[in-house]
């Protein structure tokens, strides 16, 4: 990992030598036009890229389109990847750009076409895990695009702050601020939606923490 991030023992180590060498070999094969290697590269990162796109866009079809565009761009521009740097920040930078482009296009479309997969209830009555997950997805949709991207990359893709800063091309401190604000706004949204109980027994909190 590119050095300036916080001490992060639980995060994935993207600088693992073996994985990196494997990836460089795979990329080298892709550059020769090896379609099997291209398939392998797409399969390897498909889940992560689609996950980011889905969390950013909230619609499966839009997310799949954005993920497809991302991989097509990646494969066409593999020769531009600086192999001295990590692959994932470069990949997520392209994915983030595709998502922002899709969001901009969606803002220009009529509202009836831009509907999230999840329609919020007026008043949620109980909180099983599925409903809570839907509430979180809705809460994410209310965030600013850059807050949402930074939050998803950190908490779901588990990238380090340094890698996110590289992917989004902003200073590391800005990324931290965005993630902190995202957390706070998400909690505030959940509280307003009644997802967080007003009175919490401390014992219950301690048991669940």
């Amino acid at each position: 990992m590119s050095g300036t991030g916080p001490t992060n023992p639980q995060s994935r180590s993207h600088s693992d030598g073996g994985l990196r060498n494997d990836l460089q070999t795979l990329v080298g094969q892709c550059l020769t036009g090896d379609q099997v290697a291209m398939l392998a590269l797409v399969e390897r990162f498909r889940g992560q890229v689609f996950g980011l796109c889905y969390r950013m866009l909230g619609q499966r079809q839009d997310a799949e389109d954005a993920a497809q565009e991302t991989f097509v761009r990646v494969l066409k521009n593999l020769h531009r990847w600086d192999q001295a740097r990590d692959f994932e920040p470069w990949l997520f930078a392209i994915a983030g750009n595709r998502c922002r482009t899709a969001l901009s296009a969606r803002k220009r479309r009529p509202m009836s076409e831009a509907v999230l997969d999840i329609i919020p209830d007026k008043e949620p009555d109980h909180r099983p895990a599925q409903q809570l997950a839907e509430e979180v997805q809705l809460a994410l949709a209310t965030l600013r695009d850059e807050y949402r991207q930074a939050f998803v990359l950190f908490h779901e893709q588990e990238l380090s702050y340094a890698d996110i800063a590289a992917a989004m091309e902003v200073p590391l401190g800005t990324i931290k601020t965005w993630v902190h604000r995202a957390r706070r706004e998400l909690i505030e949204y959940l509280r307003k939606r009644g997802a967080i109980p007003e009175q919490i027994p401390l014992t219950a909190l301690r048991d669940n923490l």
Partner: protein
Amino acid sequence: MPSAAFRESTNPMHCREFESRLNDILDDRGQPRADAQLAAHADACDPCRQLLAGQQVLFAGLKHRPLPPVSAGFAGRVVAQAAPASVVSRGSSSRMWWALATVVSTASAVLLIVSLVWQARRGNVPQPSDNLVNQTPTAPARNHRAPGSGLALSQGDWLIEAPRLPSRIRGGYRGTIDNLAVALPETVQRAGEHIAPGIRPIRISFGVLLDALWRTFPGSHDDERPTRTSYHALHLGQIA
């Protein structure tokens, strides 16, 4: 329940510190419950306890969020879309340079030939001074300009006023082309015989091409053709 002022004054950790510490722990992907100071402050402070409960609910929701599957054949579609273009883009780069070089060299050759032909033909155009000598007195003056137009010139004006090289130099151009047509094939023939005898068919083709080019010059006549000592011995049958 203690008031906010009481809480701020009696707790060793303030609410602002609580949130900052909570963020630090989450940034390090740690567990807030392992921090005794956070638990102690949350025990006495409702807003901070709500904040702690909120992050707990948030991460529980994040954990259970479903991710729909990507449709079948996703990777194949990507590769089908990207692979031909990527191969073509790499191959087309070198092809583009070759095409550019070909176009530039062809354009240069055409420009050179056209300029040579133009200069050669100018040697055949009757001299303006000759025309002026043969003009009848009643012929209209050709060097006056059209009324109301300071720059417009008639075609006849151009014949008179266009810049021309002296006939001695124009004759030199013509002579240069003639000499080139004679000397170049002979030089090529000599060089070919001494250096690379295997290029004889190419040389013969070149000679025939140059000869054909000369014949296609506008205004050229057989009697104007220079003596081509090396050509006289050649005919198309030799190429085969």
